[in-house]
C-alpha cells in the first residue's frame, strides 16, 4: 500500500490536497508548486520560494468543498495580501465549519487559466473501474457531457474519450483559439488510470479542474477518496452536491 494512502487510511480519512498532488506527481502529472504551512510566517516564507502571485487553500480532512467553506483565496500578489488572506481563511472556516480539524494551509503557485477539464475515476462492484473525462463547470454538472471508459484504458481509448465529448470543439480551438494539447490530456487520463489500477484502496478520484493549454495540462485541485473512509458527519461536513 502506498505510504500516503496507508497513513490516511490509518487515520480513517481521505487524502488531503497536497497528498493528492503528490500522488499525481508521482504518476507523472506535473502539479503547481505548493507547500503546506501552519502559520502566516511559514506561508510568507513558502510564497517567497514559490513566487507571487500565489493561492491559499485550507487543508482539512473534514472539508470536501473548500470554496464553500470560505477556505480559498487566489491571486494573492504581496506578502500583505497573503497575510490578510491567511487570517480571513481561518476566520471563515472557524465560522462555517467550527468542528473541522485543520491540518494547515496550502500555499500554491497561482496558475493561469486554461480550458477547464475534469478527469475522474469511479469504481463499480459489478462493472469494474471507470475513468471519466469532461469539461469543467456547467458542462459536467448541467449538460452531463462526459465520456467514460472502463479500465484498462488504452492510448487510443484515452484519445477517444477526449474526442467523444460534445464540447470537444472548445478543446479543438473555438473561434480561432489555439487547440489544446490533446496528447497531454489523453496522457493525464492514462496516468490517472495507472494510479487507480495500482491502488485498489482508492474509491474515487476527482481531478477538478485540470487546466488544458496549447502545450501541456496542469491539475489545480484534486480529491482522492479511499474505500471505507468517510468525511465524518460533523459541522465540518459541507458536502452538498
Amino acid at each position, binding site marked *: 500500500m502506498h505510504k500516503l494512502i496507508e497513513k490516511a487510511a490509518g487515520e480513517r480519512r481521505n487524502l488531503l490536497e497536497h497528498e493528492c498532488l503528490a500522488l499525481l506527481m508521482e504518476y507523472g502529472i506535473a502539479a503547481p508548486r505548493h507547500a503546506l504551512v501552519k502559520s502566516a510566517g511559514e506561508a510568507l516564507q513558502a510564497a517567497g520560494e514559490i513566487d507571487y502571485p500565489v493561492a491559499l487553500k485550507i487543508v482539512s480532512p473534514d472539508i470536501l468543498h473548500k470554496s464553500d467553506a470560505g477556505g480559498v483565496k487566489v491571486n494573492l500578489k504581496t506578502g500583505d495580501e497573503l497575510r490578510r488572506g491567511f487570517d480571513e481563511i481561518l476566520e471563515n472556516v472557524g465560522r462555517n465549519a467550527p468542528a473541522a480539524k485543520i491540518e494547515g494551509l496550502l500555499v500554491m503557485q497561482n496558475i493561469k487559466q486554461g480550458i477547464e477539464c475534469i478527469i475522474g475515476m*469511479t469504481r*463499480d*462492484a*459489478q*462493472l*469494474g473501474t*471507470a475513468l471519466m473525462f469532461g469539461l469543467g463547470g456547467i458542462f459536467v454538472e448541467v449538460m452531463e457531457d*462526459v465520456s*467514460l*471508459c*472502463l479500465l484498462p484504458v488504452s492510448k487510443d481509448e484515452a484519445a477517444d474519450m477526449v474526442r467523444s465529448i460534445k464540447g470537444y470543439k472548445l478543446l479543438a480551438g473555438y473561434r480561432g483559439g489555439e487547440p489544446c494539447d490533446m496528447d497531454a490530456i489523453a496522457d493525464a487520463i492514462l496516468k490517472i488510470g495507472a494510479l487507480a489500477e495500482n491502488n485498489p484502496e482508492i474509491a474515487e478520484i476527482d481531478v477538478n479542474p485540470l487546466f488544458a493549454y496549447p502545450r501541456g495540462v496542469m491539475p489545480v485541485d484534486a480529491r482522492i477518496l479511499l474505500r471505507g473512509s468517510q468525511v465524518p458527519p460533523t459541522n465540518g461536513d459541507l458536502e452538498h452536491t
Partner: protein
Amino acid sequence: MHSLNDILQAKSIAVVGASGNPEKMGHTLLNNIIKGDFGGGIYPINPKEESILGKECYKSLGDVPGSVDLAVVCVPGKLVRDVVDEAGKKAVKGLIIISGGFKEIGNDGLENEIVAIAKSYGMRIIGPNCQGVNYTGNKMCATWPFVKTKGSIGVVSQSGTIGAEMELLAEKDGIGVSCFAALGNKSDISEVDFVNFFADDPHTKVIALNIEGIREGSGFIEALRAAAQKKPVVILKPGRTEKGRMAVASHTKSIAGNDRLFGAFCRKYGIIRALDLTEFYDFCKMASFVARPGGNRMLVVTSSGGAGILATDTAEENNIDMILLSDGLKSALGKVLPPQCVLSNPLDLTGDARAERFANAFEALCKDQSFDILLPIFGDPIPGAYEVTETLRKKTKAAVVVSYLGGGADQEAEVALMNANRMPVYPTPERAVKSARAVLGLLR
C-alpha cells in the same frame, strides 16, 4: 445436478395442469407443444380428464409410463409444492413453472421451499411466475404465443412481452429465433445459464438479452464478457432515465444501476446496445446475418432523393462516413447512367429507376474499394431488386445493407426474398444505417 441443457434438449414433456378448456393456460401450452411438432413423448397431466387434444391424459406424473425429462407446471400456486416433489420422485430433470403466487407477491417462503425440494432431487427450475421457453432447436414451444419458425437469434428476456414480440417480429420476417425464454422470478435458472448455453449452442448465432437489473455476484457480467468473445451479444436494458429507473425498481425490484457506466461496459467488450425495441430486433437481425462491414465508410445508392437524405442525416449522427465519390468512380457511373442521375453520395438514380439501372450502377461500383458499407435504397415498387442486389453482393467486398420502402406488393415480395436469403433489409433508411453502425461495434 441437471442443467439448462437437459431442459432444452428434453426428449419427453409432461404438462402438469393440462386442460381441455381452450381458455386455460394448460390448454394453450399443451396445444403449442403439439403444434410445434415436438418429437418426443407428450403427456398431459390432469386427474379429471381421459384425454386432451388427442393425447392420453394421466392422473399424476407418477402414472406416466415412460420417463419424463421436463415438466411444464401450470397448476394453481398452492399445488406446486406437491407437483415438484412428485416430479423429483419421477426423476424429472427440469421444471418450467408457469404458476404464480411466489416471491412476486411476497410469498418468499413457498418459493424457497420448492427450490430446496428441486435441489434435493437435482432438478432445475425455470420460473416460477414465468412465460416459459420456446427452443426451436428441439421443436419445443413450451410457452406462448405459438411461434414455430426456426432461426438463429437466442432471446432471453426479463419481460415476457418484449421477448415474445422479438419472436413475432422475427417470424414476420421469416427469419425466426433459435430460442425464446422469459424467466419470471428466476428462482434457479437465470440469464447467466442462458448466456452460457447460447454461447455454445450451434443453433444460436446472436444472443439477444432484455434485462432490467444485474444481480450482484450472479456472474452475469463475466458470462456476458465470455459470450461476447464467441458471438454477437445484443442487449436491451431499459431504465436509461430517472423515471425509467424508478419503473424498473417497481417492476422487478432490481436496481437499474449506472446507465452510462453500463454503456461504457458494452463498448469495452464489443457488446451491442439497443436503446429501444426496434433497435433490439434490427440489430439482432443484422448481427445474425453475415454482412459485417470492415469500416465506417458508406455509399448510398437510391431511387428516392428524400430517403437518401434521411440516410445521410442518420449516418452523420452515427459517426458513419458518407464518402466523396472519386473522379474515376463518377466517370465510370456517368458512362452507364442516364444524365438525370446525381453522381454524388447519395448516388441518386432518380424516381424512374428500375432494377436495371440499379444493376448498371452496381456493376460500376462493385470493384471499387472506397467504401465499406453499400446501402441501396429501393423507393417505389421495383421488381427484381433482390436479384440485382444479390449479384452485387457476390462481387463487392463491402457489406450490403438494404432499405426498401414505398413499394407495396412488389416490396413485400422482394423483401421476403431478401430475408429468406439472409440479406439485411429494413423498411426505413434510418434503421438500415443504425443497424450497420451497431455491428461495427463488433470490430474491435
